[in-house]
Structure formats: structure tokens, C-alpha cells
């Protein structure tokens, strides 16, 4: 039987493209024949802007890359700069950085669970996720004054020490969170509709995942144990005990279960970091005008969405010659078509949700 393709244009304004992504979809009835993402609707020229800003001025701009995990971006960039300069960050500052990055990971994953569930139609979970996220943002606000674009760290450490109030807030939050996660799990994990929608959908094989450069939870869901926190430790992650959860099927359900498990592991790390917080300085002395001798460096961290890398080339002035960001969403987004082909139209939305993309990071 001859079929007639429907060409559907999703976006740039569409409720579930997570921003201003545009997808050109070819459908045969509801079966997906082709998905072509069109990017650039949020291209802000960040990399060009970086070449015209000093090293310190760039740090707050990195917040605007992945606005759901601003602190991870700060950390990734700063670690690259510090590696390029060859300076060591005080131990206490490293621990504080770990605490805040892990809190940010919690916030990002909670928002992800909400958005993903909302894409599949369970709208209450979005709101539940945001309640807990709000608590984390309050901690950030207490620490730095900002909620979303936090700018929590500086070159050489962290600007201010954390006080007892913040530690109290984190402790209460950590105590509260497991119950909330359990709530979300009762709503979703065992739900038949949820399982129908996620198990066996958006499957990707480990070979494809590696070839496409997939990282983060999406890669781990195919069974490859790869977590930069464990494999190439940075910022004292080697001091903490935690597991890297993996699963074998590479479908949406696995990605969901993995992220919930990662939330639990992050709580473990935060607890350990708070218990063993060393005393001492929080900021190394760095010159106010930061001039870095010519050189180049690539450093990557495990952001909530995958591997976040910064390539920095310096030229001896206070501004970098080139900053290139390896954004996890950009790489993960490439695999959308592989995951979607032959599935139904509704699955595009679910797969897109599961990839945890942020357009600020994709379009730069």
C-alpha cells in the first residue's frame, strides 16, 4: 500500500521541544520516518563573546549555557582555567564545590524527571519535582544571592565559605528528599501506562552510543560504566564513596531509573562531603587581572547531562584566544534520530524528554 508522508514542523515554538528547538518530522500516519533537528534558534554567539571577555568575566556567562545546571558549567570552566594556569584549589573549596555541584545535579535531575513525566502526560510529577528543586534553589540563594544563574565559584576556589545556616539547610533537605523521591516512584515506576510508554522505547545500542559520542546517563543506560567523577576524578571526587549505576537495555525506562538512582548517590556524596569537610582557606590568591601564558587545555567534568568539556586556548593576554565548549546536550541531541526511527510520533516527545537537552547548551 502506498503511503503518504506527512511533513510536520515541530517548533521552534512547541510545548515539548524544551525551548526553541525545531524538528522537521516526516510521518507515515503516526510512524516516524525521519527526524531532522534544526538548531540555532538560541544561538547567542557565546564562544565569540568569550573571546572578547576576560577570564573572570566569562564565569557568570557560563551559567547561561545549561541554565538547569549552572554550577556544573561554572565548575567545568573554572577547572579548565585552573588547569591551564596550573594552580591548586584549597581542599575546603574543593569540597564546597563538590557539595554545590551535587546539589545542582539533584536539581537538574529533579527538573528532568518532572519534564520527562510531563512530556508523557503525568503533569503532577513536574510540580512535585519543582517543589524539591525550589528547596535547592533556596540554598543557592542563601549562598550566592541568585537562584538560577548562580555564579557560585571563582577562579581559585569559592568566594565565600559556607556557614552553619547553609549546612543546616542542606541537612534538612537531604533528610526530606528520600520521601519525595519515593512519592515520585510510587506515581511512576510501577505504573502500567508509564512502563508501556518507556520500556523498549528509544533504544540505542552501546556501539551506536559510542559512535555517536553519547555521554552521561544516556550512555550508562546502555551498560557502559563511564562516569568521569570515577574514571578521571577531579575536585576531590576520589575521596568519596559512591556507585556508578548502569543498566543494560538503553531504553527510556532505564534512563529514568538511572537518574533516580543517581539522585540517591548524589545525596550520599553530599552527606560524606559535609561530614568530612576540611578546615582552611577557600580561595587561592590569583591576580586580579588574569593573564595566562600561551597554552591550551581540555578539561571535562561529569555534568548532570553528560560529559561537559571546555577547551581553552590562551594567548598571553587577559582574554582567551578561543574557548570551545563540548556540550553534552549537543552530542546527545544527535542521537535523537537513531532513537526515534520507526517509533510513533508520541515517542519523539518522550525520547526528546529523556535526552535531557537544554537549548542554551546546544546552541551556545
Amino acid at each position: 500500500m502506498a503511503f503518504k508522508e506527512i511533513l510536520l514542523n515541530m517548533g521552534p515554538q512547541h510545548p515539548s521541544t524544551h525551548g526553541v528547538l525545531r524538528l522537521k518530522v516526516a510521518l507515515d500516519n503516526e510512524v516516524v520516518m525521519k527526524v531532522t533537528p534544526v538548531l540555532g534558534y538560541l544561538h547567542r554567539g557565546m564562544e565569540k563573546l568569550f573571546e572578547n571577555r576576560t577570564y573572570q568575566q566569562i564565569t557568570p556567562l557560563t551559567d547561561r549555557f545549561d541554565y538547569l545546571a549552572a554550577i556544573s558549567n561554572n565548575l567545568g570552566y573554572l577547572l579548565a582555567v585552573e588547569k591551564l594556569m596550573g594552580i591548586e584549589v584549597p581542599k575546603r573549596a574543593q569540597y564546597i564545590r563538590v557539595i554545590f555541584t551535587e546539589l545542582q545535579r539533584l536539581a537538574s535531575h529533579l527538573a528532568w524527571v518532572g519534564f520527562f513525566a510531563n512530556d508523557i502526560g503525568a503533569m503532577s510529577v513536574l510540580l512535585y519535582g519543582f517543589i524539591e528543586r525550589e528547596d535547592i534553589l533556596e540554598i543557592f540563594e542563601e549562598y550566592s544571592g541568585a537562584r538560577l544563574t548562580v555564579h557560585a565559584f571563582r577562579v581559585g576556589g569559592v568566594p565565600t565559605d559556607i556557614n552553619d545556616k547553609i549546612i543546616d539547610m542542606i541537612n534538612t533537605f537531604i533528610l526530606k528528599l528520600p520521601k519525595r523521591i519515593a512519592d515520585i516512584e510510587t506515581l511512576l515506576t510501577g505504573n502500567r501506562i508509564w512502563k508501556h510508554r518507556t520500556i523498549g522505547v528509544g533504544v540505542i545500542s552501546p556501539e551506536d552510543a559510542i559512535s555517536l559520542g553519547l555521554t552521561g546517563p544516556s550512555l550508562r543506560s546502555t551498560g557502559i560504566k563511564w562516569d568521569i567523577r570515577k574514571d578521571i576524578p577531579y575536585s576531590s571526587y576520589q575521596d568519596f564513596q559512591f556507585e556508578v549505576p548502569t543498566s543494560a537495555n538503553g531504553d527510556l525506562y532505564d534512563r529514568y531509573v538511572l537518574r533516580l538512582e543517581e539522585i540517591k548517590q548524589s545525596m550520599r556524596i553530599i552527606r560524606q562531603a559535609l561530614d568530612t569537610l576540611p578546615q582552611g582557606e577557600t580561595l587561592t590568591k590569583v591576580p586580579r587581572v588574569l593573564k595566562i601564558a600561551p597554552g591550551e587545555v581540555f578539561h571535562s567534568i561529569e555534568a548532570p547531562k553528560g560529559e561537559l568539556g571546555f577547551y581553552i586556548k590562551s594567548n598571553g593576554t587577559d582574554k582567551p584566544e578561543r574557548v570551545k565548549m563540548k556540550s553534552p546536550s549537543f552530542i546527545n541531541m544527535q542521537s535523537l534520530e537513531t532513537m526515534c526511527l520507526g517509533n510513533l510520533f508520541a515517542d519523539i516527545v518522550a525520547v526528546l524528554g529523556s535526552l535531557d537537552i537544554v537549548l542554551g547548551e546546544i546552541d551556545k
Partner: protein
Amino acid sequence: MSNSLAADLIIPIIKIIIVGLFPLIMVMVMVWLERRVVAFIQLRLGPNRVGFQGILQPIVDAIKLFFKEDITHTGVDKVLFNISPVLVLFSSILAFCFIPLGGTMQIGTYNLNFWVAESPVGLLLIIGISSISVFGVIFGGWSSNSKYPLLGALRSVVQILSYEIPVAFSVLSIIFFSQSMNMIDIVNRQKDAGIWYGFMLPVSFVIFWISVVAETNRAPFDLPEAESELVAGFHTEYSGIKFAYFYMAEYAHMVLASSLAVVLFFGGWLPPFPNVAALSFLHVIPGFVWYLLKIMFFLYLFIWIRGTFPRYRFDELVRLAWKWLIPLSLLNILVIAFVRSFA
């Protein structure tokens, strides 16, 4: 003015007006209730600024939509585009003619019936009339000359086609017992039987309920208007008062579905255990109130389901109908027929 004129003309007209308004009032209540209840499920407050606890919110919305620009964009089939909201809304309101909102009340010598029309095939008519709404959805989706509405309309056709069958089968099992398609008779037979059909035929009720949730395009079966996939589904291109028609029609259909569930399975205007003498004081409360209480329960159920479940996918939805509900309802009918004829 003679007594018979009042009985024959004026009272029916008043009844028609009331029955016409009743679903609309219920729609208003439902819009408010849904927004509040879903908000409470999600640990929010919901609209509470306009009127007492925000009760005027739906009215405010309606006024606003009424004064909004009504866009008919180019490339639209004007006749179908304009007729479909009307079809959708009025098909559901029309069906209320045959729904008994209460029992018969004795006022002097006059017997006041709480229904507009009594037909020996009332049930069939209701199912027929309410199915007209799918034409509204298809016309609306097709005439919009846009792809998302078209996809929404296509989904809607498949959905209604699939789920009409289990509804009909589960209703058929009622008719086995009531021996009538007259809605009033069905309620009276439940009184005679001393037990509501819902408790007698639980399988039929479950099939019926799942199917009507699907037919009203409510979560988890809200595929024709699935927001995360199809923007706003078949009414994406509608604005202003026409959109309000679609918006109200969705709730009117919910009220209709709940009313059907109450009348067919839960004894319409009857109080609980109508034949138990010890509970006869329940008869003091008018039948209309019982009916209202019961439909409120089912309407609440609609909202509760929406706040909890994820959305079905298109193929799962069709599979559920054809692989589970239809065979199950066939088997159900077989068993009931067997029991009816031999027991």
C-alpha cells in the same frame, strides 16, 4: 389560563430551559473544581482570587473569551470551521433531554417529572446524539487547514470508533436486566431489583467507565488534544468564543458521561438501598440531590485520574480497546446472557 395549558406548554418550556442550563452550570462548576482539585493534588492553591475561593473564575474566563478576537485564518473551510464547535457543544447538551435528573415529584395533582423527554429508546438516542460530537472534532480538525489539528482529528476518529463498541456492549448488559432502553425504566428496575446495576454487573461498569473516559478525551486518553505532542490538538487554530465552545464541550461531555454512569449503574435519583425500610428516611432528600451527589463523585474521579496518570500512547490505546476491552465485554455479555437465561 387553564391548568392544562400550564401543564402542557409552560412547564415543559421551563424544563427545557433548566435542562439546557444545567450542563452549562455544571461546566462552570467543573472548570473551577478541576483547577482547584488539580492544584490541591499538586500542592498548589489554584484560582482563589475572583469571588469566594475563586468560584467566579470560570465566569471570568468565559467573559474574557467572549470579548476576544475571533480569528478565522486564511485557507479555512468556513462552514465546517464555524459549525464544528456548535456541533460539539450542543450534541452533549441535547443528550440531557433524555437523562432523568430526578424522580417524579407530586405537586398538588400535578406530577412533576425531572426529565424533558421520555423515549422508549432513550439510551440509544443518547449514545447516538453524543456521538455526533466526533463529527465536530473531525470537521474542526480538518477544516482548520493545519497539521496538528488534522492529526488530532485522526486520533479522535480512531479513538471514538474503538471505544464506542465496548460502551455499547456494556450498556447491552444493562438492557438484559432492565428489559428496556427507557432511561426512567432503567432506574425504576434498579429500584425493583433492590440493587444498583453497578454492584450487580461490576465488570460491565469498569468497561463502561474506562471507555467513557476515553470517549470524553480525558487523561489518560487525551490524545486528540495531547498538549505535549499536538500543541492543542484539534482546536489548535480556534480562538475566542469558538474555543470556549470546545472547552465547555469537554466538560459537558464529562457531565454527560457521569450522568450516564449514575443512571445506568448507580440508580439515578435513587438513594442507597432504596428498598431497605430502615433507610427509608433517605427518601426525604429529593432525588435530584442524590443524582447530583453521585455525579459529583464521578466528576471528581475524572479529575483525580487526570492528576495522577501519564498519557497513553496511540497504539497502546487502540490495543487496549481491541485486545482487552472488546473481548472482555463480549465475554461479559456471554456470561450475563447465560446467567439470565438459566438462572
